């Protein structure tokens, strides 16, 4: 039965319109894979040497079917990254997952499920895909380069078998008609007449018959190739950016300054090729930070950091950084990534000496800026234990129980510090880098009251409170805000954008640019070859027949053929040709 072969193939790479290129990419040549359409080939296998196997493997890799398989694999492989927490985005969630799943966690970790997008298997898939792509695109580009300089295929003898057809008569000579048609087809786009659409050849077929062969839409294949090559270039640009970029994070408290240098960053991430000496040592001062919230819902409405930037050798200049609006200073982009409160406190030790003074950033935990932070006081007078204060800042505090407080809004309407007190060894001298937002409790003991319950201190701005056990005092001086800034430099950005947009343009062209061939034959009077029998009774003069072929499904083909024919025959165009061409075809 013919059933299996009846699958329609509107735009196959091996269709009637195909260029020679398509046989290479269309995987038409690997037999026996998948479809049950063809009978199995006779199992006589020639001996393949290593070179033969390599060629075979390369053909497989660059075949359309394998490309398709790799695409689907890529889609599947990307999914685990949304199911499992990823190191790069949420390291703390990965740590929590490992604690919660002691059985499966380590295995998932080993198999790269917490670093999906840099794992060996994910990289292998996309690298193979790109190798396949290059292996497919380069031969096609070569072919296309040759085809672009080729001529349209000669007018076929019979025009009756094409999907779009038309005919008519003209009182003019066949040659005149053919040349008029050629001129009409060479005419460019409406409004852009100098941009040619069709490539046109005029042939003298002998016996007074002239024909025109025209082809348009090389752009379609060009767009396709540009799209794929731009994807390769995009990958290269992204990789180059990874090598050359740097990204740093820094917290700046209102009134403070930060210098653009490696030493002053809180965290730094950089590519192998990034040279820290290339950093321009500008100074950025946070003058003021404005935070606006919706008065009823408390939802954030606007964050604006007013800064002063001093570049070396220049005057200080004011600047503004907003959430969607980074500030570019000497090629470095500065982003406003977070904000919060940094209560300024002064801690005096038992001897009454100032052991610590200054603002301490507290990290907001929720929408009402319940902020958590740690005040570490290592520099106490000789012989005394070091002090650590852990606790919360509540910008708009509300007492809900004896010792229970919560924040009711993000604005500092009634700020309150709620602290517990630790003393002993902060562990800062061990040489191990410490998280400034966390207290290492190993060498510390928590202060407790007579009943053995932990002591909780509450401090309001301007107040001074005694620390328990005679450790000293703590004073809440003021409540400045801080901003968390990302500083970033990626020289590849313009390239990434350029190649992405090139890919988009190529894609749109390859999908929407019509690829069409039109033929027109002008034959004298009667009995010219290739003339439809139905066209013969149209009278003397020149009989014109025309046909069109398009790549894939093309609704515009028949109307275009009719327009050309109308112009050539000086016909008055009907107002609304309905389902053009179909009637002639039927």
């Amino acid at each position, binding site marked *: 039965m013919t*059933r299996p072969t*009846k*699958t*329609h*193939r*509107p*735009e*196959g*790479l*091996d269709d009637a319109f195909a260029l020679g290129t398509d046989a290479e990419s*269309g*995987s038409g040549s690997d037999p026996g*894979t*998948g*479809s049950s*359409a063809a009978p199995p080939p006779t199992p006589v296998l020639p001996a393949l040497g290593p070179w033969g196997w390599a060629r075979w493997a390369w053909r497989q890799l660059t075949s*359309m*079917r394998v*490309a*398709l398989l790799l*695409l*689907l694999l*890529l*889609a599947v492989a*990307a*999914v685990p*990254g*949304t199911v499992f927490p*990823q190191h*790069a*985005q949420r390291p703390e969630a990965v740590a929590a997952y490992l604690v919660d799943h002691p059985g499966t966690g380590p295995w998932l970790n080993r198999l790269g499920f917490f670093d*999906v997008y840099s794992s060996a298997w994910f990289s292998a898939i996309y690298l193979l895909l790109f190798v396949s792509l290059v292996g497919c695109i380069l031969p096609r580009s070569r072919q296309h380069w040759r085809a672009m300089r080729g001529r349209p295929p000669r007018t076929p003898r019979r025009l009756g078998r094409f999907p779009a057809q038309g005919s008519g008569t003209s009182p003019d000579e066949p040659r005149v008609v053919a040349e008029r048609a050629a001129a009409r087809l060479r005419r460019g786009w409406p409004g852009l007449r100098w941009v040619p659409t069709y490539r046109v050849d005029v042939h003298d077929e002998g016996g007074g018959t002239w024909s025109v062969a025209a082809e348009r839409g090389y752009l379609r294949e060009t767009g396709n190739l540009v799209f794929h090559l731009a994807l390769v270039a995009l990958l290269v640009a*992204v990789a180059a950016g990874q090598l050359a970029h740097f990204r740093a994070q820094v917290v700046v408290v209102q009134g403070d300054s930060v210098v653009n240098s490696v030493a002053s960053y809180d965290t730094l991430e950089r590519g192998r090729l990034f040279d820290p000496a290339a950093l321009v040592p500008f100074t950025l001062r946070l003058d003021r930070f404005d935070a606006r919230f*919706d008065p009823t*819902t408390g*939802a*954030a*409405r*606007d*964050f604006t950091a007013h800064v002063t930037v001093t570049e070396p050798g220049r005057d200080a200049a004011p600047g503004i950084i*907003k*959430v*969607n609006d980074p500030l570019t200073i000497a090629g470095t*982009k500065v982003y406003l*990534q977070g904000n919060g409160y940094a209560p300024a406190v002064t801690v005096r030790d038992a001897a009454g000496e100032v052991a610590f003074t200054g603002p301490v950033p507290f990290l907001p935990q929720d929408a009402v800026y319940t902020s958590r932070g740690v005040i570490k006081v290592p520099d106490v007078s000789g012989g005394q234990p070091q002090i650590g204060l852990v606790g919360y800042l509540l910008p708009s505090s509300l007492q809900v129980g004896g010792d229970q407080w919560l924040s009711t809004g993000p604005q500092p309407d009634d700020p309150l510090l709620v602290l517990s007190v630790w003393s002993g060894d902060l562990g800062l001298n061990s040489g191990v880098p410490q998280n400034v937002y966390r207290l290492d409790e190993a060498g510390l003991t928590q202060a407790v009251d007579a009943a053995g319950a932990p002591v909780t201190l509450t401090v309001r701005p301007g107040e001074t409170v005694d620390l328990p056990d005679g450790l000293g005092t703590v004073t809440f001086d003021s409540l400045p805000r801080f901003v968390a800034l990302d500083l*970033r430099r990626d020289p590849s*950005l313009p390239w*990434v*954008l350029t190649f*992405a*947009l090139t890919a*988009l343009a190529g*894609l*749109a062209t390859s*999908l*929407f640019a019509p690829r069409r061939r039109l033929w027109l034959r002008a034959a004298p009077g009667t009995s010219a070859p290739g003339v439809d029998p139905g066209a013969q009774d149209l009278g003397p003069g020149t009989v014109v027949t025309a046909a069109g072929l398009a790549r*894939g*499904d093309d609704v515009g083909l028949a109307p275009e053929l009719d327009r050309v024919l109308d112009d050539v025959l000086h016909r008055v165009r009907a107002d609304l040709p309905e*389902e053009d061409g*179909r009637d002639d075809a039927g």
Partner: protein
Amino acid sequence: MTPGDLSTLLVWAAMTAFTIALVAYTVDLARIAEAAQRRPRQLARVGAGGVPDGVADADAGAGAGVARAGGASARAEGIARTTTALGIVFLLAGVVLRGIAAGHWPTANMYEFTLVGVLAASVVLVVVQRRRFIAFLGVAVLGIGVLALAMALLVFYVRADAVQPALQSYWLVLHVGVAITATGVFTVAVAASVLQVLSAARAEGRSHLSAPWARADGVRRALAPWQVTGPRFAWLRQVPDARNLEALAFRLNAVGFVLWTFTLIGGAIWAEHAWGRYWNWDPKEVGTFVAWVVYAAYLHARTTRGWSGRRAAYLVFIGYGVVIANFTVVNLYVSGLHSYSGLR
């Protein structure tokens, strides 16, 4: 009444209009099915006196020219067209008022996203139906649309409000707007693909329900009336053939794919502005990427021997599934940078 309340009312009105249109489309489809079942007898009766107008054999004439399938009810079609248009007007007014009430382009949360998505899908539907009236497309697209509007009003609804600083950018219009439009286009395309697969299966006489199933033959017998080759799907003879439907689905998917590509690129540009990273492997980004890759696989499959036609259509189903999951599951159950649903 505030603009926000009026907007909600208009969305309810739009949903009502779409429901009526859905019923009208279904009636039309049922009429076609009925006529298709009756047709062989009728043809035999009129055989002597020639085939009357409008009952031309559908399988032969199912090219592009079948404007109205045999048995279709002109009144049902008229009602469907009118109420669809009315629903679009209501929905458009609702969206505009919503934007006025919120003070920004109304694409900032799931509720607004759904409204605009349904608006886009129904507009694409009307454009497609203008050329060729296919009742099934209306049933499928408006079915999804009414369901989506109900979800929007009952589950996703949040009060119209200003947006957080991260969303205060013209990219809210471009990136999200294009993403919504692409989703709408994909919706109509997937309906066309479903129809294509059904139509091809019927034309080829292929049904999984015709041969006995090894284990669950009882299930098969229960489902037997729903064989695609059976009388219940006789209306499929009146729809354009699989080739034309495939072409329609491809054109829509091609447009959707280009829009989706722009969504990815626009999103990357916005991410670069807002977060300082153009690509962060955020769950939403991954979902968008996966959908893009699946649709890219579809475009390749179309031109691969052995994969064109039905198998390529399966990729359309997967791709659309990913698009919808990326909107619903990722927004509601996965935490990431794109957590803008406004729902807690």
